[in-house]
């Protein structure tokens, strides 16, 4: 009696487990062209900051190209999204164009086998050449940019800073004294939003400018397995900086279950003063709130090499399985052109520069975009490590959360991340690991 019931239960459980999988395989409509119109599909992530401008760009594109219609599909962000993109590519179910990351995440898609080669393609005629390394593998270019470059460092509330008479820190020591003063004023000095684990990585990834300022060849040595986070005292600092807010009581209580949407609101309301994060969430804020928030790079030890780490825009790619490659190329070219970026800015204010020839930040761009532009103009910015090296471990987020919440020491965290990276390199079959 029992075993039949437990088997039935297992069978029912198994049946239910299949339902969400079936729901995942949404139709990627291969467009009909019976009425002379070509329909192509575009896959983007589901963040508001992407979906809204995507709609605006599509509307402008369809106006300029009345014979092509574009249908959108969305996917989750983060590792779930990475997984979905890989699965769609391998099953031939990918949309005609998809917006995804550039840099190391692109390398993991095996672009040679899955993506259309756009080297010297007219679709890239307006793309700023400085973007190309982020979408190149073995000398072949696979993508054009969408959206803006981002800064990765510390977002701060300018009102709190001016009220307390603080100035933007140029060294970590200044950051420490600022944080102590903010705490004394009864405001949360540093925000952690660890429910969205990806936000925890900024301490290490955003600190890369300081690492590269000390050793310009660090990224190459890292790819070649010659330097490690745990054994390089400069690189290790990122982990130490992550542990400090908790140790010194700067971190918000409940950091472990705060989401990044809640965090950015608290920052705008002035309940918290500093938030290590990328600049993109600013575009989700109302303009009045966005105007209160500024950006500075994670400070290092030396004020003379102060600068910021920047993230290249994401890439637009066309899978080889697309049935409408020509129409897809037209769309890609439009997004990476001045009319495309204008449409993009009309939906969300840019939070950094577009890497499109001749584009300029509009006057009403939020302060973070201007702060970032200043780093770029003064040539004190460094691309993040993921654009210089294909090696990035998958567990950095969890390791950083453990370091930030004091479960793991910075030294152990760095060693764990080194092991995590070794695992990735072995799974990619990279030479020298």
């Amino acid at each position, binding site marked *: 009696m029992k075993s039949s019931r437990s088997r039935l239960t297992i069978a029912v459980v198994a049946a239910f487990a299949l339902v969400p999988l079936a729901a995942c395989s949404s139709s990627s409509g291969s467009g009909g062209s019976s009425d002379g119109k070509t329909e192509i599909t575009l896959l983007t992530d589901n963040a508001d900051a992407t979906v809204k401008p995507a709609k605006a760009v599509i509307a402008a594109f369809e106006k300029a190209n009345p014979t092509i219609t574009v249908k959108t599909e969305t996917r989750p962000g983060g590792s779930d999204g990475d997984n979905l993109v890989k699965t769609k590519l391998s099953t031939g179910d990918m949309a005609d164009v998809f917006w995804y990351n550039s840099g190391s995440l692109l390398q993991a898609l095996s672009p040679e086998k899955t993506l259309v080669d756009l080297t010297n393609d007219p679709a890239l005629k307006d793309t700023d050449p400085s973007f190309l390394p982020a979408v190149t593998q073995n000398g072949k270019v696979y993508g054009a940019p969408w959206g803006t470059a981002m800064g990765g460092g510390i977002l701060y509330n300018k009102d709190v800073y001016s009220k307390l008479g603080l100035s933007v820190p140029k060294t970590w020591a200044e950051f420490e004294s600022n944080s102590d003063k903010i705490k004394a004023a009864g405001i949360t000095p540093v925000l952690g939003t660890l429910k969205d684990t990806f936000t925890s990585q900024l301490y290490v990834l955003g600190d890369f400018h300081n690492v590269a300022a000390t050793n310009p060849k660090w990224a190459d040595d890292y790819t070649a397995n010659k330097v490690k986070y745990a054994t390089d005292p400069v690189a290790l600092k990122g982990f130490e900086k992550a542990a400090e807010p908790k140790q010194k009581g700067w971190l918000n209580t409940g950091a472990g279950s705060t989401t990044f949407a809640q965090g950015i609101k608290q920052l705008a309301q002035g309940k918290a003063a500093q938030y290590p994060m990328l600049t993109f969430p600013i575009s989700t804020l109302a303009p009045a709130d966005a105007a209160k928030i500024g950006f500075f790079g994670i400070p290092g030890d030396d004020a003379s090499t102060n600068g910021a780490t920047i993230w290249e825009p994401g890439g637009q790619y066309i899978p080889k399985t697309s049935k409408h490659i020509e129409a897809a190329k037209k769309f890609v070219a439009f997004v990476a052109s001045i009319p495309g970026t204008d449409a993009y800015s009309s939906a969300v204010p840019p939070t950094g520069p577009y890497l499109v020839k001749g584009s300029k930040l509009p006057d009403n761009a939020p302060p973070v975009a201007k702060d970032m532009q200043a780093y770029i103009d003064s040539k004190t910015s460094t691309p993040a490590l993921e654009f210089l090296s294909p090696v990035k471990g998958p567990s950095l987020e969890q390791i950083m959360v453990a370091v930030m919440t004091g*479960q793991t020491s910075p030294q152990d965290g760095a060693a764990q991340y080194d092991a995590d990276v070794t695992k990735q390199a072995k799974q990619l079959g990279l030479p020298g690991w």
Partner: protein
Amino acid sequence: MSSRADEARPVGTRDDAGADRPARKSPRATGVRNVRAHTYPYWFYAPAGVVYGLIFLVPTVISFYFAFTRWTLFESEFIGLDNFRQFFSEQALVSGLRNTLVYAVVTSGLKVVLGMLLAVLLTGPIRSRGLMRSVIFFPVLVSTVAVGITFSVLLQPDVGVISTVLAKIGITAPDWLGDPSTALLSVALVDVWKGVGLATLIYIAGILAIPKDYYEAVDVDGGGAWTKFRNVTVPLSRPATFTVILLSLIGGLRSFDLIWTMTGGGPGFSSDVIASIIYKTYQAGFFGLSTAGNVVLFILVTLIVYPLSRYFNSREVES
């Protein structure tokens, strides 16, 4: 899971299925099975056999192969035992194993205790018993993911309903899901809330099956309520207890959806279980490695559940 081969055979009435295992000892049951084997011609089994082979048997066998490869979905390369070596050196594996066991034991234990007590209540002479029974079963029917998302909102510090209510009576609630020391247990409690309905239902069936004579005998001997519970209800609902333990232990060992939606295995690695560790390797695109992890999980669950189910079955025959 331990009896996939058995499932290929048509399972008839409940009594036969119960006799499945003891069949090895009893010649009568073997005779029954032979009769059943001739009920249908072989072609009648073909459709189900094809489905079974294609979507259960073939993937299972293939997965054992891919566990030994570096697999990108696009191509695979045989790398021997490297995946298993890597999986066993996974830094979160030891804590993940411990968490898995803690989670399985805590949820299973609480479901037994609470399920039994609730079943005693709901078989008692109370008003609108049918309604009450439905209400306690309701969470079982709700999507686990929905429960997870709802509770992560309810459990938020400062703004969450639960923390607000506790604050009203002067208790400062911990950051349930954000504090590494409470995260796993908080999820386990939600799991108990969601799953206790099923345990209660099984106990209700078990308790109702106990003949009234035993209770009357206790009355005659002058025993009280405690004696009835201790000496009649608990021992005679043992089959139900075994079912609840087995089901919730299997559920606890392979638990994933609730943990993933509520904490994602975090903060850090503090609520990681085996299934979430495997899922993360899958997310990272290490398909060979995650397949190896699944093979390990399969063996682990089999090792724990198979002897347990053998033991319970043998006990059931005796009782």
